[in-house]
């Protein structure tokens, strides 16, 4: 536990002195801010139009703006922003360590590979959570003017989904980073893999063939959809947790095998 904590603290503080991390945070907040604004104004306009129509037809308006905003925003962040930005967060996790030669120190310290992998994973996840947290301000700003009242439970479900999806992408990205000494290579490969996931997600979304159903089930982005609807689906949670475990396990195996392959 002490070893995990030491690795965790070092890794997390490492993020806060890295220019890449600040670039990622900056870009993420700017992009989410803009997207939130665009989504909000689009739905407001739509609701305004629907209200006008409703008045003409004499029917009550049928749109829940806060709910739609949450859904679209959580969906967009998870499906498009995170696959774009997380590779930059994870590309250096192991690659830099190998290049600097500090991996040799970690591997000759009385630490198990498990402690290294777990410490690093939770540090990345914490950093991601810290990056996500400021976006909650958007809802706080929106809340006083919200009609009907802002459904915080759906916000909670959506953000749990974002965190779990982030965990999957981090586990995957870290594994790719552990395969190379070059963090640029790691970043590009991770990015391409995430793009493939996104592509797969988009092509299977409107199809219902057996193949498409399988891919849908295997796509972390598809599972994210249910969270974005405000539903915490146990099978999706289990899917995420097992995907993370597989990623961490592969990383662990890879670190272990590095001892035997090293020339």
């Amino acid at each position, binding site marked *: 536990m002490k070893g995990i904590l030491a690795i965790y603290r070092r890794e997390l503080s*490492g993020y806060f*002195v890295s220019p890449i991390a600040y670039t990622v945070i900056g870009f993420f907040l700017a992009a989410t801010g803009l997207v939130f604004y665009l989504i909000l104004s689009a739905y407001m306009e739509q609701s305004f139009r629907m209200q006008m129509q409703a008045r003409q037809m004499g029917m009550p308006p049928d749109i829940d703006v806060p709910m739609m905003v949450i859904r679209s925003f959580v969906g967009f962040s998870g499906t498009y922003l995170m696959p774009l930005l997380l590779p930059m967060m994870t590309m250096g996790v192991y690659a830099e360590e190998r290049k*600097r030669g500090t991996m*040799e120190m970690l591997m*000759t310290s009385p630490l198990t590979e498990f402690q290294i992998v777990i410490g690093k994973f939770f540090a990345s996840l914490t950093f991601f959570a810290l990056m996500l947290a400021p976006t909650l301000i958007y809802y706080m700003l929106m809340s006083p003017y919200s009609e009907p009242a802002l459904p915080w439970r759906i916000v909670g479900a959506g953000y749990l989904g974002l965190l779990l999806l982030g965990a999957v992408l981090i586990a995957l990205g870290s594994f790719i980073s552990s395969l190379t000494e070059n963090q640029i290579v790691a970043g590009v490969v991770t990015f391409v893999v995430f793009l493939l996931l996104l592509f797969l997600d988009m092509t299977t979304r409107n199809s219902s063939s057996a193949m498409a159903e399988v891919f849908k089930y295997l796509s972390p982005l598809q599972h994210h959809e249910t969270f974005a609807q405000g539903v915490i689906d146990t099978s999706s949670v289990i899917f995420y947790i097992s995907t993370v475990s597989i990623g961490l396990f592969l990383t662990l195996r890879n670190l272990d095998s590095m001892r035997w392959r090293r*020339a």
Partner: protein
Amino acid sequence: MIEVEHLVKSYGQARAVNDISFKVEKGEILGFLGPNGAGKTTTMRILTGYLPATGGTARIAGFDVFEQSMEVRKRIGYLPETPPLYTDMTVSAYLTFVAQIKGVPTAEIPNRVAEAMRMATLAERKDELIKRLSRGFKQRVGIAQAIVHNPDVIILDEPTVGLDPNQIKEVRSLIKNLAGQHTIILSTHILPEVEMTCDRVVIINKGRIVAAHTTQNLTTQLKGGERVRIQVKGAAESLRASIASIEGVKSVEIESSADSLVTAEIESERGADLRAQIASRIVNKGFDLLEMRAVNLSLEDIFMQLTTEEHAEGRVEAKGAAKAEEKAEEAVAETAAP
């Protein structure tokens, strides 16, 4: 403290380490000497548990480096060839981290870190970012990192490489200070370093041990015969004749004779100290003896003899040394892992 027996490490067909055995007693400094690519780093990495060996055993403080790796790692401080530094951290934060992962009890960490910084004379720089330090200071941080958990065994891979002469001196004296309470293995391809810092030396070439001795012993053991250099006033030829007739003298080599000042080098049989006989013979024959001293072969000469095929001449001249160096490099290319 360290026992290595028949250690082998192969990469495919190539053997980087080929049947190496040696022992290091507690408190000793062992020098690991050899050209680049001789297998020094590989051997050290096996000892630290970074690499598994293909065959043989290695024990540190009684623990097998393969079977009880964790116990061994707790007792080892290791400085790889490039110091393993997190350059975005300050010196003290970095050393605190290392102390944590080496399993130093939390309460002792501040003391251990302060002590390591004191020994490596880093105290004044403790709040500086490592990336702002000079090469020499970075190396000291690397050494501090290796001693912060007060390990029984310290393994230093080329600790003085890339430093300027002053820094080299500092690092060497730091290493000397560590001896006694710690057992140290250091590798180098610089011979004077071994002469200055080590108690014993293992010379390794192409993955094999070619010689292992105490530093003093190595020089006497390997130089073939005793050599005495004299400077005498008199005629060169009659001097040669009168000395050559002393029993035990193998050869007399006149190096220069000008203005009846003769410089000569006398080689005698192995183990025979003929200085007294030579001196009295010279004086009895009426020459003026101006100077006489025993010639010690430098480790450099011995090294060349051991690591190159051509070692018939015994003494290697400047030109020969350059050639031998080329040879050593060729050897590196040959032994380099695929």
